[in-house]
């Protein structure tokens, strides 16, 4: 048997006193997809970075096809045939696709001074053909910024492969892709496997693991836990490996119905509309109505551009005073005008983009937790550091945020703990209505579970929750009711028990609750924002 | 909202421009005055002198332009004046070489050009009026030596200690004011104990003087290349409580600067660096009336001291 493409043995790495990797070994064979699984902070990304030549000082051995190597720079790793696709894409938006594909290795003449544009175009087209990328010569000349994220993702892969890589490492490549886009990526991976590449794949999505994996290696707290063929590693065992304990029920179903159906609604919305920023286009949301009672969790589902996110932003006043319709909170009329006002009235809004609009990464954990409720810790405008720390500490404990100190910058925490900090920030405002958009995005399995439990507890405490999620199991298990939006309007409403993935999808595509199609089918590009079609079975 | 605010601002700007550009009528001749930089009080004074001299003659009208210390802007302004067919040009150029061609071009087109303060190259202009920095520096040096000779220490055979605060040694006026001063000091019982560039700026002069006071225990005289520099040095010495034993002299002698400082007794002497504004207007009139003028006029300067400032100073030899 020939040596594997890649052999890692006893890899270790420390950042200061923190041992983030310790004695990790693994093989990558030609023609296999090897999934690297583990909770956030398990050391997966660090391992990939060692492979990519980003971290040069590590313990242990890296062998390529039996030959020991040690990469000092990303360029060296690249030259040796290793291509890495990171969570953040490394494309230059303003440059053309072809220019991006060959950035740093432009075909050139006259000693490298004169760009050979025709040769670059030729080679780019050739590359696209090999990889089944449907990009025309004109497409190649357009700036990368013109393309949707999914296309960028494949361009990034094409760029990696144009360097004749045999080993491809992908760190959560699907985190921002929709269903069909994911399918196309997987098809590309199949092509690469046939060509003899080995793929190291990191993902947090259980469904994906079983769709792509040939073998799975699990890391926990920087240590190797186990490696198994995907077929020999059923989901419960995988989860047990990842979190180190058995989760009897991955998403426990909601215990009991929402209480007090006859109670006054916490949040009542009637005929709510959100205009589109472009006046020429139809409104982002129109005629939306809902009543959410204390203790109720209402789920919202919709395809990309259906208006779910816009609905939250409109309700929260993030667009200003532009929305139409009527809103009541606990029976009091409420006009969304400005987030500041909304917070005062008991609204809280967890955005999907944690980095972009949730956290202030450079500020401390304590400062982030108190950010939305500063008046409470600064009577007469003067900050009381003691009060702030005490309140932040209490929230951090209640949400079980794992941190070294309240003063540590929030950017240094893992994804799940960052999300808990954002949640803590909103809880500090003592909200009555929680708007949650993708509360478990980029969060590891253990933290996900904890966040679900927290949501239930808040509901039990009498809050009203509205939930947008692209993870179908999450939506189905947590929601008391699910509303489906299509092009800004409600096309379906399902109670607990009657909702199935199939019904929701039909409504999301414009077929109102089992009725024949109400409008023209959405264009192909308007594809699923949501879930892979194959959902695990639900009780 | 934003668009309306923008329009409002634009309208305001247009109104301001219109007011600033409104012409006066009734003059027989139009003179274009191109000033290289109105950021210096001395040049503000030059314009003021021209304006005052011109006010006495209703038959001429002067249009002022300020090049804001930009050679190319000044070149463009001279060309604008030529295109506007002014009857005569007064140019105080920023520097010689790059401004020679536009001045020569105007001269060739038959527009008389009076060049003020700094020269252009060649002969293609009507008249040059300027002062001689080296001569003024020499006069300051000679005056300083006479004054220092009165000090008991010098009478007893000791050396006088001098601080020189230079303008900018990369500029011609700075170099000339330094060279002239040193010529006069040659062979005399003096020692320059501290010298520094203060870039013609008063706050900078004050900083440098503080350093001089820190390193030199005895200072008899401070020679600054301009009056603000001398004033800054005085303030530094005063803050240190050492102003009484030091003689301060400066150059420029502007009415609202150097002359004031002399009157107040802060400076003992200020040496005029004349702007030539009045002379420029008088000679321009001669040219316009068809009289002949000298190709080159070197302006005489005055020294203002406590004794003579009230009487209007005293002409230097």
């Amino acid at each position, binding site marked *: 048997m020939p040596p594997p493409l890649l052999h890692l043995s006893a890899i270790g790495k420390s950042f200061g006193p923190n041992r983030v990797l310790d004695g990790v070994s693994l093989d990558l064979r030609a023609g296999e997809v090897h999934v690297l699984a583990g909770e956030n902070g398990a050391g997966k990304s660090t391992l990939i970075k060692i492979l990519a030549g980003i971290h040069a000082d590590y313990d242990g051995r890296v062998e390529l096809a039996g030959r020991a190597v040690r990469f000092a720079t990303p360029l060296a790793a690249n030259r040796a045939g290793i291509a890495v696709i990171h969570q953040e894409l490394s494309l230059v938006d303003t440059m053309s696709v072809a220019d991006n594909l060959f950035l740093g290795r432009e075909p050139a003449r006259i000693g490298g001074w004169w760009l050979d544009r025709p040769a670059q175009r030729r080679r780019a087209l050739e590359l696209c053909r090999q990889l089944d990328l449907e990009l025309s010569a004109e497409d190649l000349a357009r700036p990368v910024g013109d393309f949707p994220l999914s296309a960028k993702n494949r361009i990034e892969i094409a760029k990696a492969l144009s360097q004749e890589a045999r080993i491809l490492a992908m760190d959560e490549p699907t985190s921002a892709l929709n269903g069909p886009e994911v399918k196309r990526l997987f098809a590309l991976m199949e092509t690469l496997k046939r060509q003899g590449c080995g793929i190291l794949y990191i993902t947090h999505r259980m469904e994906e693991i079983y769709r792509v994996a040939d073998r799975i290696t699990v890391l926990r707290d920087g240590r190797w836990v186990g490696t198994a063929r995907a077929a020999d590693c059923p989901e419960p065992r995988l989860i047990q490996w990842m979190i180190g304990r058995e989760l009897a029920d991955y998403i426990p179903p909601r215990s009991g119905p929402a209480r007090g159906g006859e109670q006054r609604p916490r949040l009542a919305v009637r005929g709510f509309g959100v205009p589109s920023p472009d006046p020429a286009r139809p409104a982002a949301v129109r005629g939306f109505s809902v009543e959410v009672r204390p203790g109720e969790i209402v789920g919202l589902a919709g395809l990309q551009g259906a208006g779910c996110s816009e609905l939250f932003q409109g309700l929260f006043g993030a667009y200003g005073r532009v929305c139409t319709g009527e809103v009541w909170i606990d029976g009091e009329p409420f006009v969304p005008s400005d987030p500041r006002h*909304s917070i005062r009235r008991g609204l809280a809004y967890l955005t999907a983009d944690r980095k972009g609009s*949730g956290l*202030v990464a450079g500020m401390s954990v304590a400062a982030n937790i108190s950010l939305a409720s500063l008046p409470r810790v600064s009577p007469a405008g003067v900050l009381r550091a003691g009060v702030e720390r005490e309140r932040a500490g209490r929230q951090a404990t209640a949400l079980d945020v794992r941190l070294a100190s309240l003063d540590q910058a929030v950017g240094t925490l893992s994804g799940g703990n960052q999300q808990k900090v954002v949640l803590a*920030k909103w809880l500090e405002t003592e909200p009555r209505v929680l708007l949650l958009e993708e509360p478990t995005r980029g969060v590891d399995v253990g933290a996900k579970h904890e966040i679900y439990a927290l949501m239930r507890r808040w509901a039990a405490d009498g809050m009203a929750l509205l939930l947008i999620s692209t993870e179908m199991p999450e939506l189905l298990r947590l929601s008391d009711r699910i509303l489906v939006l299509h092009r800004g309007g409600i096309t379906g409403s399902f109670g607990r028990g009657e909702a199935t993935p199939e019904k929701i999808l039909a409504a999301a595509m414009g077929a109102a609750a089992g009725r024949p199609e109400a409008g023209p089918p959405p264009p192909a590009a308007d594809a699923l924002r949501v879930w892979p079609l194959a959902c695990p079975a639900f009780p | 909202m934003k668009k309306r605010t923008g329009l409002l601002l634009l309208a305001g700007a247009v109104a301001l421009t219109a007011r600033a550009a409104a012409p006066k009528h009734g003059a027989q001749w139009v003179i274009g005055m191109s000033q290289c930089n109105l950021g210096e009080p001395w040049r503000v004074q030059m314009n003021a002198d021209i304006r005052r001299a011109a006010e006495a003659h209703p038959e001429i009208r002067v249009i002022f332009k300020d090049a804001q210390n930009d050679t190319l802007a000044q070149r463009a302004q001279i060309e604008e004046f030529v295109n506007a067919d002014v009857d005569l040009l007064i140019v105080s150029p920023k520097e010689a070489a790059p401004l020679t061609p536009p001045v020569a071009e105007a001269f060739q087109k038959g527009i008389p050009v009076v060049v003020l303060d700094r020269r252009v190259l060649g002969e293609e202009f009507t008249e040059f009026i300027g002062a001689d920095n080296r001569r003024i520096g020499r006069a300051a040096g000679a005056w300083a030596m006479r004054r220092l000779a009165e000090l008991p220490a010098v009478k007893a055979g000791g050396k006088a200690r001098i601080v020189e605060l230079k303008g900018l040694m990369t500029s011609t006026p700075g170099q000339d004011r330094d060279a002239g001063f040193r010529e006069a000091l040659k062979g005399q019982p003096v020692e320059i104990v501290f010298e520094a560039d203060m870039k013609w700026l008063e706050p900078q002069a004050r900083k440098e003087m503080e350093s001089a006071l820190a*390193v030199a225990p005895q200072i008899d005289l401070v020679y600054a290349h301009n009056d603000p520099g001398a004033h800054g040095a005085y303030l530094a010495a005063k803050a240190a409580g050492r102003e009484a034993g030091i003689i301060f002299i400066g150059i420029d002698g502007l009415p609202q600067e150097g002359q004031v400082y002399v009157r107040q007794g802060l400076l003992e002497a200020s040496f005029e660096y004349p702007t030539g504004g009045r002379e420029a207007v008088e000679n321009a009139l001669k040219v316009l009336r068809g009289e002949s003028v000298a190709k080159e006029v070197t302006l005489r300067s005055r020294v203002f001291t406590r004794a003579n400032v009230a009487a209007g100073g005293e002409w230097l030899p």
Partner: protein
Amino acid sequence: MSTARRWFEHSGTRALLALGFVLALGLVFNAGGAFFHWSTHRDMLRQVSVDGILACGMTLVIVTGGIDLAVGSILGLCAVLFALVSLHGGYAAPVAIGAVLLAGAGAGLLSGGLVARFRIQPFIATLAMMVFARGAAKWLSGGEKISQAVQAPDGSFAYVKLPAIFRAIDARVWGGNIAVVTLIFLACAAVTWLVLARLRYGRYLYATGGNEEAARLSGVPVLRAKLLAYGLSGAFSAVAGICQAAQEQQGDPEAGAGYELTAIAIVVLGGNSLMGGRGGMGLTLLGAMTIGYLEKILSINAVGDSSRLMLTGLIVVAAVLLQRRRAG
């Protein structure tokens, strides 16, 4: 990571290292012992005060992720205004100071409004204010220094007495050991520290600079926070203008030209991030000391202008690299 290593990586320590480097230069090149006299340090503290006051406002603005290029021009405008009101107008000191502070804060609020309300890039908005304020200073003064000599319409001069406030600001206290302007600088630094470290609005400034969208959605009054930063920066520029006028005993419309760059250099040399969201007044104070000592050491050694410019460039880079090396 060892404790010592972490200590080194603290940005305050790194700024201290740069200051130490410059001070070491002073020990070596002490100009015949002049560096060892308190008066040299006292004078340095006086000289750096005006720049330091501007740097206080600059710190507030830079924390919000902005930049204020108008501080030098507002200084000039306020120096002229103070001289006009106090010296020529003969108004009492509190009136003059109040009017000038209002004018400075107003100019700052104006550029803040352009940044916050009309979303003009800070660089452009304050560049416009920088040009406009310089023009206003020249227009108010007629292009001439507003000094004790007042020109009558006929060209003759009358002289006014220097108001006591001018002498008071330019005086020294505590046995002549510290300049009043230095105390004013320290007071401005204390106000800035208070705002940034102790007030709710300070937190708003950090949040705005750190992540404006997250701050807005968390109910932070981003617009008001920016107005506060630029308004305070304008007010500090006015304070600096008053100090400048008092020290020159006149209002010079050209005063403060180029000071904005020194103020930015002070903030950055202290280790504050130009990206916003981080830093503080302590770092700016260290930056001010570093710049002040650098200028002072070059000055007492009577280094010529051309060499001084080159040395300043080299030493600033060396100081910043020294900070960087430890950050490894």
